[in-house]
């Protein structure tokens, strides 16, 4: 099947056209030395040189979101429900590892109790993903968790920069197919399936050095108490950068804030690396040391979540590897686990 192509230079106009349909626009732009997905950025500033430092998480699961409002009147309280601020959104040129994080976390937000705040935003969000021709950063390891630089999980439309000037378009979801009309306005030519296959192959090859991590879960389940945790995690300063930059980390806190006659309840990002996360009022803390908290993060991603939801809670985006201030690389830790499993240790 042939795929429509457009000029790379038309990407900003395409972004504009997609946003023009009443959607808020999110796209990667440069700030200093790094890229960030930003809402409301100028499409002309679109920068695709590497993977952004933040993930797209904040546009579906904001760092601070109101979940309840209330007013006091005498002894009584009046509760007002809050609708999520779920505007139609297009995330333009998300990376595949970011887009793929959505199907990973969806079961969490929907097992038994359905979180409308995530779901309604998800419903309203259109993901136009920019496939990576080759792994954009040394930290990338999507291939290790069953994805690839051109993975289309979670995406509505895939864009492939098949050469420096040409971008191929492939709708993935029904939502993406409905956009055919917008895309076709920019149509310049066609490429064949083979071109996309070659593209994907190039991406896969760029990550050929990454190990599969298929034995990590089994190893973890048998090594809860292992010197590895102290040995690796002594250096962890508990800054939580890994959890906050991670597209799949979803833990949150609930906080009340009020003034004189009312207030609201907020859902804020939280992370397993902080002692307060699990501290009981009694003073007891099940995870009272940093290595235990670090271990929890690895377990949650590579053992607990797969056991519960059948998916690794990691898309291999490498942010926690690249931005850890003390270079405590998650990949190294899980690759060590894999190696030891392979050796039968």
């Amino acid at each position, binding site marked *: 099947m042939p795929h429509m192509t457009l000029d790379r230079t038309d990407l900003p106009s395409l972004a504009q056209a997609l946003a023009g349909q009443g959607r808020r626009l999110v796209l990667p732009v440069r700030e200093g030395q790094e890229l960030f997905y930003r809402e409301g950025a100028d499409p002309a500033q679109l920068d695709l040189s590497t993977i952004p430092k933040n993930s797209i998480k904040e546009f579906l699961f904001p760092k601070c979101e109101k*979940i*309840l409002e*209330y007013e*006091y009147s005498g*002894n*009584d*309280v009046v*509760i007002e*429900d*809050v609708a999520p601020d779920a505007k139609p959104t297009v995330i333009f040129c998300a990376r595949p590892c970011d887009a793929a994080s959505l199907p990973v976390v969806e079961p*969490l*937000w929907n*097992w*038994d*109790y*359905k*979180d*409308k705040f995530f*779901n*309604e935003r998800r419903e309203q969000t259109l993901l136009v993903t920019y496939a990576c021709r080759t792994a954009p950063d040394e930290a990338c390891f999507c291939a290790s968790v069953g994805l690839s630089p051109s993975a289309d999980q979670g995406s509505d439309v895939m864009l492939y920069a098949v050469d420096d000037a040409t971008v191929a378009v492939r709708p993935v979801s029904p939502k993406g197919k409905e956009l055919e009309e917008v895309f076709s306005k920019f149509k310049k030519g066609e490429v064949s399936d083979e071109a996309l296959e070659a593209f994907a192959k190039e991406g896969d090859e760029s990550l050929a050095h990454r190990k599969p991590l298929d034995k990590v879960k089994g190893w973890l389940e048998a090594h*809860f*108490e292992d010197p590895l945790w102290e040995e690796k995690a002594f250096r962890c300063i508990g800054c939580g950068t890994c959890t906050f930059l991670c597209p799949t980390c*979803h*833990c*949150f*806190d*609930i*906080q*009340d*804030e*009020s003034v004189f006659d009312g*207030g609201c*309840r907020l*859902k804020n990002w*939280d992370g*397993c690396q902080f002692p307060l*996360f*699990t*501290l*009981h*009022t*009694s003073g*007891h803390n*099940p*995870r009272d040391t940093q290595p*235990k908290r670090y271990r*929890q993060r690895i*377990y*949650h991603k590579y*053992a*607990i979540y797969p*056991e*519960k939801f059948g998916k690794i809670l990691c898309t291999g985006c490498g942010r926690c590897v690249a931005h850890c201030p003390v270079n405590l690389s998650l990949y190294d830790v899980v690759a060590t686990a894999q190696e030891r499993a392979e050796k039968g240790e």
Partner: protein
Amino acid sequence: MENIYKPYLVRIEEKRTETYDTTSFKLAFLDDDMRENFAYHAGNFGEYSVFGEGESTFCIASSPTKKGYIECCFRAAGRLTKSLAAKEVGDVIGFRGPYGNRFPIEDYYGKNIVFVAGGIALPPVRSVIWNVLDLRDKFEEVTIVYGARSEADLVYKHELKEWEERGDVNLVQTVDPGGEGPDWKGQVGFVPNVLGEAAPNAENGIAVLCGPPVMIRFTLPVLRELGFRDEDVWTTLENRMKCGLGKCGRCNVGEIYVCKEGPVFTAAQVAQMPNDF
């Protein structure tokens, strides 16, 4: 879509000061329909909110056999519980729930039951106790071993009296050495020892156990010695929770989300868990 974080409003109908730092409430839903139809099971917990302060997690202390209200009992320890304790009869607070799993009461029918509780851990057990007592005919011997650091630390004292007076319950109360007052009629000693002496019938027996970690640690061997199998020893796990819905990510022990698959577990299940609680 429904807002899963939205609590029901409940009014404080009764407030009782159980100890110097522990308070119990009887709560009624403002909504008529909820008051009529709210259903739960022994072992379920809820999120109690004081608006402007936050939410806190503790069990429903009343028995599901009692209709029209729920009860809770808590120690004023943190920001939320302190402001909750400051609430008075007539005040409105929030409640989300019921959450979590339950004690499988039906499976206990026809068996001997021993309840073992320490200090502030009586409330979760109390839910089961009243559930059992309200269906007394379905059970064989019922023994309650309840202990606290001192007389002043015993909660639900008025009910202890009631249980004591009942002919169909064997209540053993104890306080730690030095915690007894001049009029103390109960035992003096730690719960595990007192339990050993009371020697409830383990044959066809179920134990429901709740207390501080140190008490659990020393009580489990005693139960085993008495002949209780780990599969027949039931307890509740307390972990810090925020959402109660299996989302916020803090209560898990290994792959078990305590807020959904717990808080009720058998000692056999607990023994299988990683040491992360």
